[in-house]
């Protein structure tokens, strides 16, 4: 391609054909103000702020640099007195239109415009057309555009939502709002659609996230991912702005999920727990009443890296003056989980402690029993008591926002029986934290089947023996650790995980597996492939060979119990050293 030489502010620069004056000025680090320019969008030429003076073919004139193509021998002055005067007046006009818009205020400061000589308005939109162009050019739907001419121009959806036509082209992707330099777009007002935010999984829905995002600050690997379901490119085939802007060219829209197969000798299942969803407990109002939150949500809120940067806020943005923490939500409750989740008492107290640390709020703990059984736990309980947290014994019957007295107006009221004094009480507070139970993962059943391990009645994975072999399972080489085996706190989890690791290491360092001497063997000639043996084997030692249509015993897993031998209808199985012939021969020997 031919190179073009031009001069900007006295400096010579070589440019490719098709570049604009603005492109080249930027490459020289020369600053030209712009309002309607965006590198991902076609030039609009509306703000005129990027005007510069050029001398082209001997004639001097003012042009806009964002769309003026470079020419051989062009001489550009980006700061001639005419240009500065012109920009200053443009800024003055814009300041009159949008006196409260930050970027305009900044420009006014830069150009020394103090008070516009014109009648002031209070518009937010500067009519730069970035939103309409991104919607048209990149998203490809053109759901918003300018309507009205002249001084009545504004950004709208077609027919302004007044006609009974549902054009339904807006994807509510929010690109317009994100590109708007003045925050003039309230997505719902502008698009006449209810935006559905993509909720951050990590911040338990307290915050929304973009379709391209880093899952959480410590994620490994610490790189962004694209949410295919939400990314506009995967919906319409358009956009691809990220690809254009990613300098290392790391965006690959073709990338697919992969299944990686690794061969291992031992597996530790540590799939964790699921936090109980309290919405089925209708009387607690979760999801129905504002400011009833789960302990996990509150945990994110109070975290200094969380969505509110550690500030405890009510829905309306104010600070709560009183907070009640309800224990045992979903635990010790026959309707949900009969077991004690073991960690709720202590984490509830931790939350109380954090609240006291972060705010002035009154804290109430409503408990059934306090179970502070661990090392240092009782001491912590005492400390929280000393800090002024009020402990009340009683399980709430209901949480309501229907006030009965003036003091209860605008509050959440906890109705419960105080079992220490044996009386019904109502406790009005601003916020309620539900200390939810730990329960087995919803897919625990599938995982158990995959690894051939068992589950106890509460749904958690079953260990081989509670005392003698607490991290092993009935399947050799498969171990469990952490809350997938049952609720436990962090120290217990770490201890269990260490144990599992030790067991695995012991196996690995031995380098071999000792097998039982007496294992079952299947006579493939007789086997009919009925798979009854597979069904009766408690140790998952029988495999079915799809090709030969026979069953086979994995000797490393077989414990020689003989269940399959008895179960085989065609007498195809024998136990080594205990074959029928051997036993019959022994019996005969004894009888003789």
């Amino acid at each position, binding site marked *: 391609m031919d190179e073009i030489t031009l001069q900007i502010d006295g400096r010579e620069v070589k440019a490719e054909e098709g570049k604009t004056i603005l492109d080249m000025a930027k490459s020289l680090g020369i600053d030209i103000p712009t309002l309607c320019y965006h590198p991902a969008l076609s*030039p*609009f*030429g*509306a*703000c*005129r*702020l990027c*005007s510069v003076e050029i001398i082209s073919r001997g004639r001097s004139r*003012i*042009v*806009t640099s964002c*769309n*003026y*193509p470079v020419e051989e021998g062009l001489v550009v002055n980006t700061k001639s007195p*005419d240009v500065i005067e*012109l920009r200053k*007046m*443009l800024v003055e*006009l*814009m300041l*009159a*239109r949008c006196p409260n818009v930050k970027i305009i205020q900044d420009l006014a400061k830069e150009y020394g415009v103090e008070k516009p*000589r*014109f*009648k002031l308005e209070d518009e937010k939109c500067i*009519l730069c*057309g970035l939103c309409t162009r991104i919607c048209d050019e990149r998203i490809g739907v053109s759901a918003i*555009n*300018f309507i*009205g*001419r*002249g*001084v*009545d*121009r504004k950004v709208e959806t077609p027919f302004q939502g007044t006609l009974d036509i549902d054009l339904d082209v807006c994807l509510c992707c929010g690109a317009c709002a994100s590109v708007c330099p003045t925050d003039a777009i309230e997505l719902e007002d502008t698009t006449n659609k209810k935006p559905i935010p993509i909720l951050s999984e990590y911040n338990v829905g307290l915050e929304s996230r973009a379709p391209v995002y880093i899952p959480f600050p410590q994620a490994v690997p610490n790189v962004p991912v694209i949410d295919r379901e939400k990314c506009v490119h995967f919906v319409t085939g358009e956009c691809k702005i990220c690809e254009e802007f990613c300098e290392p060219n790391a965006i690959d829209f073709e990338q697919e999920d992969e299944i990686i197969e690794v061969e291992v000798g031992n597996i530790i299942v540590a799939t964790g727990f699921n936090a109980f969803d309290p919405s089925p407990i209708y009387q607690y109002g979760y999801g129905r009443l504002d400011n009833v939150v789960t302990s996990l949500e509150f945990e994110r809120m109070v975290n200094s890296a969380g969505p509110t940067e550690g500030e405890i806020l009510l829905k309306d943005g104010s600070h709560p003056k009183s907070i009640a923490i309800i224990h045992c939500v979903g635990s010790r409750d026959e309707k949900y989980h009969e077991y004690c989740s073991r960690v709720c008492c202590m984490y509830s107290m931790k939350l109380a402690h954090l609240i006291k640390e972060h705010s002035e709020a009154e804290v109430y703990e409503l408990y059934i029993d306090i179970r502070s059984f661990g090392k240092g736990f009782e001491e912590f309980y005492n400390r929280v008591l000393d800090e002024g947290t009020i402990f009340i014994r009683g399980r709430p019957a209901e949480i309501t926002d229907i006030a009965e007295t003036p003091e209860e107006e605008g509050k959440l009221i906890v109705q419960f029986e105080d079992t220490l004094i044996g009386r019904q009480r109502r406790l009005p507070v601003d916020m309620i934290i539900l200390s939810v139970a730990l329960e087995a993962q919803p897919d625990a059943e599938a995982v158990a089947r995959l690894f051939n391990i068992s589950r106890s009645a509460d749904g958690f994975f079953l260990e081989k023996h509670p005392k003698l072999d607490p991290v092993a399972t009935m399947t050799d080489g498969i171990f469990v650790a952490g809350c997938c085996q049952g609720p436990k706190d962090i120290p217990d989890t770490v201890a269990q995980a260490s144990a599992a690791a030790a067991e695995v290491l012991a196996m690995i360092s031995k380098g071999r597996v000792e097998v039982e001497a007496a294992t079952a063997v299947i006579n493939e000639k007789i086997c009919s492939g009925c798979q009854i043996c597979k069904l009766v084997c408690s140790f998952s030692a029988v495999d079915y060979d799809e090709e030969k249509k026979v069953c086979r015993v994995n000797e490393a897993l077989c414990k020689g119990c003989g269940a399959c031998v008895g179960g085989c209808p065609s007498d195809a199985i024998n136990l080594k050293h205990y074959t029928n012939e051997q036993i019959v021969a022994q019996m005969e020997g004894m009888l003789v």
Partner: protein
Amino acid sequence: MARINSNTELEELRQEILSKRDQNKPRIAVCAGTGCLASGAAKVIAALKEEIKKQGLNADVDIKETGCPGFCERGPIMVIYPEEICYLQVKPDDIPEIISETIKERKVIDRLLYTDPTTGEKVTHESEIPFYKNQKRLLIGTNINIDPKSIEDYLAIGGYRALAKALFDMTPEQVLEEVKRANLRGRGGGGFPAAKKWETTRNVPREPKYVIVNADEGDPGAFMDRAVLEGNPHSVLEGLVISAYTIGSHEGFIYVRQEYPLAVENVDIAIKQAEEYGFLGQNILGSGFDFIVNVHRGAGAFVSGESSALMTAIEGKVGEPRPKYIRTAVSGIWERPSNLNNVETLANVPLIINNGAEWFTSIGTEGSKGTKIFSLVGKVNNTGLVEVPMGMSLREIIYNIGGGIPGDKKFKAVQTGGPSGGVIPEQYLDTPVDFDELTKLGSMMGSGGMIVMDEDTCVVDVARYFVDFLCDESCGKCIPCREGLKHMREVLNNIVEGKGNEGDIELLEELSRLMTKASLCALGTSAANPVSTTIRYFGDEYQAHIKESKCPALVCKELVSYYIEPSKCQACMICLRNCPVEAISGGKNQIHVIDQAKCIKCGVCFDACPTRFGAVIKISGEPVPASLPEKERSLVRGKK
């Protein structure tokens, strides 16, 4: 109709058409243009047909419904041939008389003729009416002879001869050369040499190329393009095909505003006919040249007439000017080379080809050749469309053709060039009207709007009116135009309301400079003209408004008070009865007085007071004299 396949066939057809026409047969031409239709031409035509049928004259009289000859103010217009008797303001009731007197008896009905306002003389023939006599009507003069829905009428006056000449006797280069030598400049506003633009488009090595007719005509009060397109659509088509041949384009568009239904209708018919006859479509006149035309109806915004906006609209997007430094002649519709010309520009092309560049350049001034159609309106006796040679002075147009200012008023100024043209004061009345002279005065030719203002016009108010129009008609895309106009309007509103401040004039001038320099399209760069020219020529009137709260023309409502001159009041009680807010007190033989606190300045009393008394006067810039004390109000008649 079989397609015409050669020049000879065309001439044969023409002879056939002419031979069937008897030049001596009575022919009644009635203007059926939009203007005359509005004043009742349809009823006149219906009555005419009815009467002719009733009198059994069907075979003896031809009726022709024609396009606009320009004198819309006196419509419906009727011209009776072969005598060329011109009747104005004809009503259906006049028809029986016209038939029995003029058609049967060959007698002229004086009552319907044009009366010279000064001499009182009656004028019988169309060409002798001063309004027409002083024009040079190359383009609209034939309108009265043509039924725009009849291609035969166009052929009868030599139509499509230029096309045949171009196709068969000239190469595209020769046509280009001819138009270049004729120095035909664009009539759409810019005055850009047509041949230069054609050449640019012709030379761009990209196909396809497009040619476009700009019939958007968004200037308020302008209707020259409408008259041409409605009255003689084939002349525009012929010019368009010739331009396409020259440029090497095979597809064209006619962008016509939706508000011109009759123009759309006539153009549609003309295209169909031209296709049937072989003037459009494949292998035109057997020459091997192909060309098709599409009609695009514009939604009618002033700014859509701007070239890049118009092309964007044809592409199906919002008609907004686009920010490109590449000319549309190089990259226009769908980024293809596209030549855009105004209706009138193209209508001139067949004339140039037929008569030659020498003939064309013999008309007009050094830099501006040929004629120009103006829409002459405002405070002038004869309003309508006037076509004059370039270089005629404003005075000649306004006084000789327009018949001067009505009601003994003084001329004050004339605004030319449409809403963003400038205002020209009396001292420049002798300026020859052409592209360059008007620009020198800070105004422009524009598309040919001409608004005459008399002494009762306030120029500040006029500037405000145009700025207000442009506030709504600017597309609103760029800051200088949109925000600039908005604040200009604000400042001007303040001034006309007496709330002007020291420094307002400078602020207006600063805004004008910014808009002219920084706007995206020509609407914005010319939008300040009405303001800057009025400041330039009538700066003292601005000063009077601002410094003395005085509107010298006594127009600006907020600055005017109504007062009854006690010595002139005849206590007739007319004003008192008409005042809508009962601000006037008085009675029989009681001199009337206006309660200034109650007066809403509607001006009803001013208009109601009999002119022979002239007792109600307007006062501006000075205090209203105190009312007469109650007891001095009785009127002593005879004493005055």
